[in-house]
């Protein structure tokens, strides 16, 4: 009854036989042992399981692994490149945007999706984008600041090469 799936996760190709009822989040956590993606509710409500599925922020606790067949996935473990942290990962440290850290991977993945589409979000934009991710520790105040900080850093680094050319 098991089904074969082929996925690319954080740039690495995997093929596995999986039970049809296996959730994508459990595939990532238990089969690939990428435990940075968390389960907070199993009903797509809390956002702790947010990953990027074909480039789009997606809550993977209500997706079957078989539905991800052929897809490209990025998890929190794949967000930094060559040891260099994503600006959001730096920003959450800089602005104290996390406490217990449990919601943090999902929060960062959702925010990364936002910044891909809206490089200069307002406070309202950020709060709206994050409304599907629960945090019980920070009161969101410093998470909003973290996203603002990362947006600034990203736009600075985008401007910087032009200045060098000039």
């Amino acid at each position, binding site marked *: 009854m098991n089904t074969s799936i082929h996925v690319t996760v954080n740039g690495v190709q995997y093929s596995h036989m999986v*039970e049809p*009822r*296996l959730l994508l989040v459990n595939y990532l*956590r*238990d089969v690939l*042992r*990428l*435990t*940075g*993606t*968390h*389960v*907070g*509710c*199993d*009903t797509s*409500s*809390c956002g*702790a399981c947010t990953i990027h599925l074909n480039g789009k922020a997606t809550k993977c606790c209500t997706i079957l692994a078989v539905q991800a067949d052929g897809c490209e996935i990025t*998890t*929190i*473990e794949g*967000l*930094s490149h060559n040891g260099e*942290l994503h600006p*959001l*990962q730096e920003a*959450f*440290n*800089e602005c*104290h945007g*996390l*406490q*217990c*850290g*449990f*919601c*943090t*991977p999902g929060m*960062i993945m959702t925010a990364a999706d936002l910044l891909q589409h809206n490089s200069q979000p307002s*406070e*309202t934009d*950020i*709060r*709206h984008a*994050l*409304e*599907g*991710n*629960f*945090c*019980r*520790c*920070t*009161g*969101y*105040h*410093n*998470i*909003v600041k973290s996203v603002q900080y990362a947006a600034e850093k990203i736009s600075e680094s985008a401007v910087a090469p032009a200045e060098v050319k000039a």
Partner: protein
Amino acid sequence: MSTNGLIGRAVKRVEDKRFTTGHGNYTDDIILPQQTYAVFVRSQYAHAKIISVDTSAAKEMPGVIAIFTGADLAEVNGVPCGWQVNFKNGDTMKEPKHPLLVADKARHAGDAIAIVIAETKEQATDAAEAVMVEMEELPCVIDAAKAVQPGAPLVHDDVPDNKSFDWVLGNPIDEVNEAMSRAAHVTTLDFVNQRLVPNAIEPRSYNSSYDPASEKYTLYTSSQNPHLIRLLMCAFVLGIPEHKVRVVSPDVGGGFGSKIFHYTEEALLTWCSKKIGRPVKWTSERSESFLLDAHGRDHVTKAEMGFDAEGKILALRVKTYANLGAYLSTFSSCVPTYLHGTLLQGLYTTPKINVDVTAVFTHTTPVDAYRGAGRPEATYLLERLLDLAAHEMNVDPAELRFKNFIPPFDGVQQPGYQTQVALQYDSGNYEGVLKKGLDMLGYADVRRQQQEAAGNGKLLGVGFSTYIEACGIAPSAIVGALGCRAGLFESGQVRVQPTGKVSVYTGAHSHGQGHETTFAQVVADKLGINLEDVEVVHGDSEAVAFGMGTYGSRSLAVGGSAIIKSIDKIIEKGKKIAAHKLEASADDIEFASGRFTVKGTDKSVGFGEIALTAYVPHVYPKDLEPGLDFSSFYDPTNFTYPFGCHIAVVEVDKETGKVELKRFVAVDDVGNVINPMIVEGQIHGGLVQGIGQALFEGAEYDENGQLTNASYMDYCLPRADDLPMFETGSQVTPCPHNPLGVKGAGEAGTIGAAPAIVNAVIDALWSGGHKVKDLRMPLTSERVWHALQEVI
């Protein structure tokens, strides 16, 4: 004594990187060799007799390893309660068994009937569905005040009136009644402090294993206090030798009180791991978290406050029914009593106080400490009374507070303040925080805006809350006298490694509070070394000698003080080693900025060299042992008493009743601050749990004892787009009785916030002529809309 300026600095957290890169290590992330998975069969009913449990079909299902029911555990104790409260007549509280699996009756929806263990979680889930349970549903009681009425269904057959205990504190009731009779004005409030679900985002998770070779158990648990779990589980539940059990709390995804307690699943999984000879893991689903994680609050109260003609408080009289749920959870009995009744002095000079509490069993999830624990209930009671009295007497609520504040005292030059309800406050400057809050708010401007808004058909409201809490739990002698069955000291070990690097072992536990940073700051500052040369170890009973964990804003005040004691011993011994090296008397050695110096000379030696000398001594004085490693225990002499002023500004939509939180000003005095960034973060998070109670959250049971909003689709947690940015300020009144002068910041926000919001909404309603006394939290649009229809 700060030596390199690390104390007081907003140092970025050293623990963050593992969390932002997905390398945290939470209990559910752990898979052990030969891992098995557990799923529970739970009662659908709030109250039902178990007729039969048939596991025969389930046992034949694929992958099933074992199934245990209550009958298999008849000889095993239940989980204990850690705090004994006595009835008014001196009798011991009623403390019925809280079994690991129920055999006779289910007493709340979710009570565990059987545990199914299989090779995979899916197989365990399938088999659990095949366990046939025949039950006879019985009438249930949900409401605490109704549970004590004659004829109410009984939760425990041997507790005839569902009363666990009744309890009274303060001045004799006759004196309070007499003072009340002299009052020019009495404000009365009948209200409910609703039940909340803590909702740490990481669900509870346990993974227990048994090694037959060493006859040793290892329990990984999402707990706030691994050592306490080990003690309770070994000594009171399973009767296994404590040195044969290792309890580890790795990264824990928030607790807020709900992960303090020793839950039945921890002991049951440990028992099962030996029975089956393989590790057993269980992670709560969110729906189980709603049903099983100890809830918070749930008080039904009548409170009366009497004032003289000048507005001075004369007396406070309180009657509370506290709902404890179906069983006594670990600290449940102290929450409505010693963490609630003792705080009813508030910040005020109230000369006569009497509080009477009846603690009641109902067919609901057990209730225990949830962020603030008793102190939010006390603060809500007092601060609602103060603002309502101000409205009724037509005086300004800030002025009414200034009139009644205890005058400033530092606990050194001026003595501590003895309350009417057992405590002695350590130090305080209550008018200071209110003055600062009013300045930050621009009070006069906001009142002007309120009048303008009224002119434009809008309702703006300002609400106050000036709170105090008792933290730094706890002075062992005092809590022992109050019924706690354990001293609540803390341990702290400082081990200087030969190369001068330092490992710190604390019995406190971080589940978001940032101890790995703040404790390292303290140690690096005191020893004059770099922050990165200090490592903080916590959460492992094998690594840390003993500990009481983290709750009640105790980590730094108690755990940090134990570490300071060890640092003092390190420096003392370092001086002796330096004296030996520098050929001077130890009395002549001074230590500052990481160097030991002979007084009045330029002869000195660095900390690193002393560390190396301590471990590689060739020629050493006879009276000096090698090594540089000290352990200490610290037992505080008193609680600490942080306080503050919270002010909310809200706008109420007259058409829909929707409340918008426009501004929130919080001025908190938590004593000395080690890391202001982390303290501010604690305040923010605390505020939102208080705001959550005021505006969004509340457990709702139906008459059949079903928790009707046991999911995130139904239970309204605050979201990012529900909230404004906060305006925070601080004042520093050091704690006079611990070495760092710290008071604790974990619960302040939650304690202060809820009454400020409700007071603001009621102020908005009064500004529009709707003179309501009370609104039941959470203040949904519907409830506010109904209040808007009342014009008095």
